[in-house]
């Protein structure tokens, strides 16, 4: 390898500095989720990644919230349906990070499995099956756009105002650690009826989807 080659190589590496972005993201998720294992066994463990009230929680919340808001705004601004799906993926992933921040680990993981892995792929599948071209545009009217924007922004402002004025009483049990076992137990005791109903619903949906996708009608 000549020195020119090294020159080229190192400059390419320099140009690839954006490749470091995944590292940053992974660091972020590391700070977000899970319990830290002590290097020595039997040591003290912390129950959540970022304790409530810590500066770390604030920083992480603002980072993830920005990501959520940016990507959800991007969903409604995108013209291309595949990009919309991509931004939806970003939104779903950041919502799952928010769940981690809310110490709902199981929900966060399920969100990743079901939403990001399943539903989104289904959507993209639908896009690919039904689009002549990803760039095919179904442009709405100007009036429609303005109206929708007005309604949405009014709603947003109103909601915001309500949130700011509301007095949220903090109940004594807040921040209690939750575990998957608790979740499972309450699903099969207090919430057993909705659980069963959800099962029946999924069954119906399965039959319905199979009927819809049937080849010969």
């Amino acid at each position, binding site marked *: 390898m000549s020195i020119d080659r090294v020159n080229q190589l190192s400059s390419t590496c320099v140009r690839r500095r954006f490749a470091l972005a995944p590292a940053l993201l992974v660091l972020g998720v590391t700070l977000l989720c899970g319990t830290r294992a002590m290097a020595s066994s039997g040591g003290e463990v912390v129950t959540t990644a970022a304790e*409530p*009230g810590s500066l770390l929680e604030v920083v992480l919340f603002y980072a993830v*919230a920005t990501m*959520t808001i940016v990507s959800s705004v991007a969903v409604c601004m995108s013209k291309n349906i595949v990009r919309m*799906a991509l931004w939806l993926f970003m939104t*779903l992933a950041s*919502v799952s990070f928010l769940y981690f921040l809310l110490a*709902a680990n199981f929900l966060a993981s399920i969100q990743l499995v079901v939403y990001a892995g399943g539903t989104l792929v289904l959507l993209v599948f639908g896009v690919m099956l039904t689009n002549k071209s990803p760039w095919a545009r179904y442009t709405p009217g100007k009036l429609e756009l303005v109206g929708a924007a007005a309604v949405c922004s009014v709603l947003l402002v109103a909601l915001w105002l309500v949130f700011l004025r509301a007095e949220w009483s903090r109940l004594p049990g807040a921040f209690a650690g939750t575990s998957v076992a608790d979740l499972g137990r*309450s699903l099969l005791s207090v919430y057993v009826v909705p659980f069963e109903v959800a099962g029946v619903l999924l069954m119906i949906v399965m039959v319905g989807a199979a009927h819809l996708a049937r080849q010969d009608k």
Partner: protein
Amino acid sequence: MTIGVTHFLVVGAVMFCCGLYTMSTKRNAIGILIGVELVLNSSALNLVAFDRYMGAGRLDGQIMALFIIVLAAAEAALAVGICINVYRNLATVDVDKATQLRG
């Protein structure tokens, strides 16, 4: 400066409005579906936030969010099936053009 339930509610509200906007401006059926997913997610986020900050140790919010995820998955499966059917019959997924009830 601490993060409270309001912070999460605001994020949820923004998501909700974005979903609403998407639903009302997109004509592509799958685009509308994406908007619906956003709305559902925002409500799930609110529920989990309430659960965390005022849950009193019960898991109502998380369970509701779990059901929302289940519902959203079911709804997406059916809706994509319907979209494909509509496309099969009308060669478009523009919801404004799908005006017949005939399959």
